[in-house]
């Protein structure tokens, strides 16, 4: 379940010169999709990596990006998270142009990419507490304890991430995505390095996310995860990027060349 947070804001919240307290709400118009991409072109150095992408992601739904390795799925996700400037087209998140420099954007959009960097002297639990507290979650420790249990990290709460296996570190990153409030959750191949049980648990968690009104945008190569979570998909490709229904998307994944 997405972490609900109280709406009462104390007046004595410390600031460091700027507005440290995200106020208001992005995309207040209820008709706005959480993500709107219209002929969105992404790439590096002005060179597009895939065909223009067009899709709407309404609240309470999940959209999957599928396509073979190198097709540009992660690049699209990076653009949605504001880590890449689109080369062309329209990209609105929560009703506004993407600008991750805005506090509100970072407060409402969560992303789990393939980062694998950790503070060398902070434990697994402390990484999650840092994330939860940094987002103003009132009972940060309680939320973190629950996440550690759900992601199979309870026995590793007090160890340093460097001692974890790659799969455990992946679970830590995923747990961080759920340790904070969000209206949009962006996941890049979340099934990577997860066993089947954890993939099923992740699918259930993402279904709960959309059921609670959250939006999920994920890139995946896992047909089971896609079938369990997504309401639609975009096949990101070099020549065109069509929107597919779920069965078509599952077939597209199964037709991918062996990885």
């Amino acid at each position, binding site marked *: 379940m*997405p972490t*609900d*947070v*109280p*709406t009462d*804001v*104390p007046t004595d*919240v*410390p*600031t*460091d*010169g*700027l*507005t*440290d*307290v*995200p*106020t*208001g*709400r992005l995309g207040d118009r209820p008709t706005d999709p959480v993500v709107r991409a219209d002929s969105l072109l992404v790439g*590096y*150095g*002005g*060179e597009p990596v895939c065909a223009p992408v067009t899709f709407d992601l309404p*609240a309470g739904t999940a959209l999957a990006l599928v396509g073979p390795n190198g097709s540009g799925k992660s690049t699209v996700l990076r653009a949605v998270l*504001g*880590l890449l*400037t689109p080369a062309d087209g329209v990209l609105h998140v929560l009703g506004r142009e993407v600008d*991750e*420099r805005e*506090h*509100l954007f*970072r*407060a*409402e959009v*969560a992303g789990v990419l393939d*980062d694998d*960097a*950790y*503070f*060398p*002297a*902070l*434990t697994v639990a*402390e*990484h999650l507490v*840092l*994330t939860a*507290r*940094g*987002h*103003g979650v009132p009972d940060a420790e309680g939320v973190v304890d629950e996440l550690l249990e759900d992601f199979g990290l309870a026995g590793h709460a007090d160890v*340093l991430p460097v001692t974890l296996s790659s799969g455990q570190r992946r679970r830590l990153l995923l747990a*961080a995505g759920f340790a904070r*409030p*969000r*209206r949009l959750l962006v996941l890049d191949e979340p099934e990577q390095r997860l066993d089947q049980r954890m993939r099923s648990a992740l699918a259930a968690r993402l279904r709960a996310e959309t059921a*609670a*009104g*959250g939006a999920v945008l994920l890139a995946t190569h896992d047909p089971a995860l896609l079938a369990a979570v997504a309401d639609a998909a975009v096949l990101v490709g070099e020549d065109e990027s069509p929107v597919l229904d779920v069965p078509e998307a599952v077939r597209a994944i199964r037709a991918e060349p062996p990885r």
Partner: protein
Amino acid sequence: MTLTATPVPTGRQVRRYTAARARRRGGASIGSLLVDVYTVLITTAVGVGLAIGLVDGVREVLPPDTGGRAAGPEVSLPTLGALVVLALVGTVVSLAGRLGPVGVGGAEATWWLTLPVGRRALLRPAAVRLPLAAGAVGAVVLPVLDLAVHEAGRPAPERVLAVAAAGALGAAALVLAAGVGQTFGASRRRIAAAGDVLVALAPALAVGAAVTGVSLPPAPTPDAGVLAGLGVVVVAASVALDRRLDRIPARALRESGSVAGQAVGAVVSLDSRELGRALGEGIPARRRRRSARLRPVRSAAAALVTADALLLLRSGRHLAQLAGAACVPAAVLSVPHLRTPVVVLPALLAAGYVATLATAEGARRAEMAPVVDRLLPIGARRVRWLRMVVPGVAIALWSVPAFTPLVLLGAQVPEWVVLGLLAAPVWAGAAVRAAYRPAPDWGGPLVSTPAGALPIGAASVLSRGPDVVVLGLVPVLVAVALGTVVPGVLVAQALVSALVAAVCAHVPDAA
């Protein structure tokens, strides 16, 4: 699902939380911190002392500047000093651009930048780090340079202090200005390119000044007004940068942080190849080029040489490095006061080695990832011979403008040029030897020196390349020292060059 106004901590609180947790497990005590500070201060002081002693020693053996004594084009010492300052300014700007100057990498990028907290407080330490480092270096380098170019004995202590202050403030101001540019969206590539242009301009201007006879007066001691002005610039730039820190996008912070982390790691491990990669490849390059038809490629050997040649010809940075290094001997020799083997020899060797490094990118990349080497049916020893071709040709071309000015020491132009051409295999061999050197060996014994512990194993690895330059160019050194090129020197250089090239093409059994 609702997410409205939510109280979050300040950036400073996030920073302090992270630091406090890290301190609990860091195991660092105040005692070890003091020891570290003491070591750094002592090492820096010893280094500065050695530099001053070296400059003083060179000054003592320099001939007196009698003015108008020498033949040929001339540049005054103060003019050369000003141009060196220009090159230093360019270096600072270039490094600032390549390193960010504001960046956040690793865990901080992943776990801090996604928080909805004020980034100013999060980024403040990162924004201060580089200007402080630049200021510290400027405070040391500029007085040493001033000592080197000061014409009337040693500068007075007041002048040394004033020059040090000017160096510190000037260097910090440059980095802060680059940081302000970064907040306005100036790309790291442009900032670095601006610095590179200044560096390349310096030797070209030196040659221009020699040809046109332009001469600058000795630099006056920076007075209080100048220092106050620099101070105002530093404060203004600091305030401007601080106020706009939250305007730097996360992608720019991550890129800069990644490059800075790689560069710091390379420096700590004394890995100059990695440092070059961090500073050179950290700047996004053009992603597409028109593909060459590669008509000359008719064999595996030709493919290898062509790959190296294309790499060099498509790297503007390395071509500029070659051109700039070619101007250095002319710039030094155009100063009558410096027209002595004590200065010319180190300048020639340093410029030549800098030029050599620019030509061996293919070998360095092959050592890191021998993709092309493994694709081609060529033995390892022959690969090394082939990898010397492009550096050899490039350095042979470089030798013409670099060795021609040596005529000011004596002998005739053709003799110096022939000597330079005969020496080209030594440079090429050194380039390949340095490129294929193994990783530094940190397992060897430590030798205590006045500047701190010296790891012998690592030092011996790092000396691969420069060692054959020094040994293989003994005939050149003799010719420069004598101010003439006799036939015996040419024969000796040819023999030594062949020997050095053969040694550098040798592949150890373990390789």
